[in-house]
């Protein structure tokens, strides 16, 4: 059957695959025929994701990407790749005047520095085959909008947006494409963990109703965008911020 979105024959590395958007992307990409290399910190939850994957030949490698030696271990153990999706990320709600060095270093380490260093090493060690696709899970926050308390998180995602452009330009020489997906709110466990500030009712009132398509996102909504960017359907697309937000940024 004609399908320009097929991932058949492609091996794709997915970070942050032990939960949320990362898990959704790993599972959906496996359904499109990809061989998946999943990585994450939590071994039990990584195994859960592994069990959800369809088809054979997938690999799981537990790693803490905030440590350089574990990035190196991941890159040396991963097979040659046709794609990489950076999903590992943490949220942080903090008013501007309460930002301190620890706050900002922690979130930059996970959301910005780790995926940039991983990308760099994948390129250096020639782990990316010709015409590969690298996808960063960014956010609408920091690139298009921002809300109260989001400035540290927004800063990490704005930095990713800049990196995507620079890397897309430079790696185009070898046919590698680099893009980001900028989702609106996708409620996952990580949000529940971080979110001690707003009640579910408040979220309903102040946030969910701002989505013109009348709902917040699911990991699958983001995964379908990732499939597009990983597949040959997007062969002429590089350096973009692909907004997937139910129309939030229209308002």
């Amino acid at each position, binding site marked *: 059957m004609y399908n320009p979105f097929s991932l058949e024959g492609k091996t794709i590395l997915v970070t942050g695959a032990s939960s949320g958007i990362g898990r959704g992307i790993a599972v959906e990409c496996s359904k499109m025929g990809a061989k998946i290399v999943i990585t994450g910190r939590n071994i039990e939850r990584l195994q859960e994701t592994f069990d959800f994957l369809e088809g054979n030949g997938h690999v799981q490698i537990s790693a803490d990407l905030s440590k350089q030696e574990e990035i190196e271990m991941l890159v040396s153990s991963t097979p040659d790749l046709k794609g990489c999706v950076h999903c590992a990320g943490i949220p942080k709600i903090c*008013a501007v005047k*309460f930002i301190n060095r620890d706050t900002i270093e922690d979130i930059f380490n996970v959301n910005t520095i780790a995926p940039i260093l991983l990308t760099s090493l994948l390129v250096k060690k020639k782990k990316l085959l010709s015409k590969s696709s690298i996808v960063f899970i960014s956010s609408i926050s920091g690139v298009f909008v921002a809300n109260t308390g989001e400035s540290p998180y927004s800063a990490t995602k704005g930095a990713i947006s800049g990196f995507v452009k620079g890397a897309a330009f430079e790696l185009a020489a070898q046919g590698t494409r680099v893009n980001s997906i900028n989702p609106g709110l996708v409620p996952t466990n990580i949000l529940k963990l971080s979110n001690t*500030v707003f*009640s579910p009712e408040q979220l309903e009132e102040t946030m969910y109703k701002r989505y013109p398509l009348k709902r917040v996102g699911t990991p699958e909504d983001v995964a379908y965008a990732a499939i597009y960017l990983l597949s040959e359907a997007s062969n002429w697309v590089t350096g973009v911020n692909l907004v997937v937000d139910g129309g939030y940024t229209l308002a």
Partner: protein
Amino acid sequence: MKLEEFVQKFAEQFDETPAEVFTASTVFKELEEWSSLTALSVIAIVDEELDKRITGADIRSSNTIEDLFSIIQSK
């Protein structure tokens, strides 16, 4: 930390509202300046000054500054 000192720290999180408006019995959610930002700031100052974690739910269940102080004391 004493209640008076907490009232003062609470007041410091506001930029427009004069400090003398704040007492232990102030119903803070009725203040014009009360917002998600001041709520966030109160949560952060409690963490910073008292090393205690309060949540949005704790703030919602408090009416006065003293109510919130009691919740903090019980943690």
